[in-house]
């Protein structure tokens, strides 16, 4: 048998060729579909206009979500039917892998053109690191769109004078209600007025007391009046009329400190958290963390039939549809002693951000604008989610699409949601403040013993504050902002 002879030089060439070939094959983008005929393949790009039209491809990255992903697919299908010359690719990433994946893609220079709703959504963190394009140059030339946004959405994402994201939709806060349980217990539904003086924290606890029941008489509670989904110290401080974050920090988007050296802020923080702890251990209208975890493992809280009211965001509606019970909602309670605080006055605003690495900023803007404000796009989005479009022109479409799923009349519900948006002054800190990600795990962990009944609020707060301030400082050092 003849044996092939390979010289040293040939061997080296072959080795290098194989390795590089394999590497290129692994790293190369998918090959374009081959042209139908050899002639066309050999022909030069004779029609530059058409070639350019075909060339624009952008991508949008979204979290894995059983309702949002079909929505995105429908949106892209509708977009493809238009003659825009822009093809949109959807990248879907699991919720908790979104940010690591995005960071890795960006570091590798292959960031998606549009960053959609992801995991923790640290929009400000992305902006301060230069990952996104400022969008005010686009919006400033589009007065129709600019005037259509709810002002609070633009204010929330204007950080350091620049618009860092294009608001897409709004999730409103509130107390979400299993009205069937109210009916069975003979308890009146709470008011729906965000601007009035009624429906205080005490009122909510009193209502919850009537709805906390041992139905089978075995000495154990079978039905809880209230599950407070919120546990953030930021939320309770605002309910009690103060704010951990200064107005300057909201405006710059960079957290410099908690304002707890102001005695009013400190007192509001302690009192607000104390009210939540009391709901578990003093008023006994709220499940303990262990029971709450058990209930949450069974499904959406209100759907379990073991909770009558959930103090959280409008995703409570989304999670409970299709409802098998009568469903209603009430405003956030007015916090503070005798209702001298606020109703929290926040929203959750999901925006789109355009990557600073995009090669097609115009195309990314066009698709984002369409998704945010076009009637056709909003009509596709509304049935999938209980979120209000960020543009005012989308609200009638939203209300039409909801079809009276609550026991409230459609007019009452429309007024309720509009008021929630009107009274809101901010988005939540994790979206709009650089540095919040670095301290969230600290305050969550420090408050756990309070929710477990192992520490007093004051003890936990006094330990928590220095740790939080240190965490903020570390973050500023990291960013070179000290």
């Amino acid at each position, binding site marked *: 048998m003849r044996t092939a002879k390979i010289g040293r030089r040939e061997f080296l060439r072959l080795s290098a060729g194989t390795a590089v070939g394999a590497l290129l094959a692994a790293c190369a983008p998918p090959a374009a579909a081959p042209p139908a005929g050899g002639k066309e393949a050999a022909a030069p790009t004779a029609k530059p206009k058409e070639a350019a039209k075909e060339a624009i491809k952008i991508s949008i990255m979204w979290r894995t979500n059983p309702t949002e992903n079909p929505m995105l697919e429908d949106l892209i299908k509708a977009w493809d039917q238009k003659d825009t010359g822009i093809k949109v690719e959807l990248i879907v990433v699991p919720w908790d892998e979104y940010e690591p994946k995005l960071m890795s893609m960006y570091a590798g220079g292959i960031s998606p053109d549009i960053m959609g709703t992801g995991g923790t959504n640290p929009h400000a963190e992305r902006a301060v690191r230069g990952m996104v394009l400022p969008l005010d140059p686009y919006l400033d030339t589009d007065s129709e769109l600019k005037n259509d946004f709810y002002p609070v959405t633009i204010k929330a994402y204007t950080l350091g004078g620049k618009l860092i994201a294009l608001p897409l939709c709004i999730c409103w806060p509130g107390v979400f209600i299993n009205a069937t349980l109210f009916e069975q217990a003979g308890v009146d539904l709470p008011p729906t007025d965000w601007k009035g003086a009624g429906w205080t924290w005490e009122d909510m606890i009193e209502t919850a007391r009537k709805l906390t029941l041992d139905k089978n008489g075995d000495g154990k509670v079978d039905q809880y009046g209230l599950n407070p989904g919120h546990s953030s110290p930021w939320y309770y401080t605002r309910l009690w009329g103060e704010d951990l974050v200064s107005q300057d920090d909201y405006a710059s988007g960079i957290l410099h400190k908690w304002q707890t050296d102001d005695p009013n802020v400190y007192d509001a923080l302690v009192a607000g958290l104390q009210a939540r702890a009391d709901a578990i251990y003093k008023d006994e209208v709220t499940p303990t963390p262990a029971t709450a975890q058990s209930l949450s493992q069974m499904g959406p809280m209100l759907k379990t039939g073991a909770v009558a009211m959930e103090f959280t965001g409008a995703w409570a509606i989304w999670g409970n549809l299709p409802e098998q019970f009568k469903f209603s909602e009430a405003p956030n309670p007015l916090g503070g002693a005798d209702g001298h605080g606020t109703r929290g006055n926040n929203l959750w605003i999901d925006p789109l951000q355009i990557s600073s690495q995009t090669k097609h900023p115009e195309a990314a803007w066009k698709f984002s604008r369409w998704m945010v404000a076009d009637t056709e796009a909003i009509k596709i989005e509304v049935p999938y989610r209980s979120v209000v479009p960020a543009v005012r022109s989308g609200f009638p479409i939203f209300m039409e699409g909801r079809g009276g799923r609550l026991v409230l009349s459609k007019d009452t519900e429309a007024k309720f949601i509009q008021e929630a948006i009107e009274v809101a002054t901010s988005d939540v800190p994790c979206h709009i403040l650089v540095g919040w990600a670095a301290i969230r795990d600290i305050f*969550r962990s420090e408050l756990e013993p309070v929710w477990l009944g192992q520490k007093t609020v004051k003890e936990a707060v006094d330990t928590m504050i220095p740790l939080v301030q240190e965490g903020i400082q570390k973050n500023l050092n990291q960013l070179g902002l000290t």
Partner: protein
Amino acid sequence: MARTKHKMGRQAKIEERFFYLFISPWLVGFFIFSIGPIIASLFFSFSTYDVITPPRWSGLANYRGLLKDDLFWQSLKVTTYYSIGSVILGIVVSLAIALLLNRNIWGVALFRTIFYLPSVISGVAVSLLWMWIFNPDFGILNYLLWELFHIRGPAWIMSQKWVVPSLIIMSLWSIGGGIVIYLARLQGIPTELYEAAEIDGAGPVSKLTHITIPMMTPVIFFNLIMGIIGSFQVFTQAYVMTSGGPHYASLFYVLYLYRNAFKYFRMGYASALAWVLFLILLALTALVFESSSRWVYYEGG
């Protein structure tokens, strides 16, 4: 023995070249995707780096920061606790089960399959399953404790005291691999040893302690090394089930590292954590290797 240099034949040389030719894609991948990142992480550990913006050299600042970081020490404490508990319990229980499965009884193949089966299920699914088992109100564990012994079970993963013991118990779920290795070794022990011992009047305990366990020491040694390395890298359970809580009671080392890298944008600090973990594991492995001459028995001497 004097080292002799063999002159390779032409055929052998050709084969050697083909070997390198065919393995070269793997080698390139290994150097680019494994060695490269390892070296890069060493550099990052001496820098301030958030993945997005270029790293800035900061010398030993990250390592000095670790020494002053309470959460670093807490994560090390929690991980060491878990490692000691899960490795010892894993070795004892898997060896005991392997001994039982080594009996020549009816249906033993079925039992072997049953004991191995749990280890093929992925980490997240197992974590979700155990969240239900540990559920203080509706979990089967507390139900059985109450029904069988009238003991009111603890809050398991919701309790600062019980969360690590809970996860140690849960680690037994994946001992199937260890059982198979022990079983293979058990079946390789020469029967003459047992026959000789019986002639000398040895009982079952004596045979276990003087024949079986000494003969098993190379495998125990292997499982000990792998167990230490694996247990220090525990992540999924804490990530899915406890988020490091309650109150940092299950803040495992790798979870803390992950948070720094991908949640707090501190990749430089996370790289320093990774290198410290590497050095700890290297030291522990060296220690176990060093001790092995005193307790591991190799038939060949």
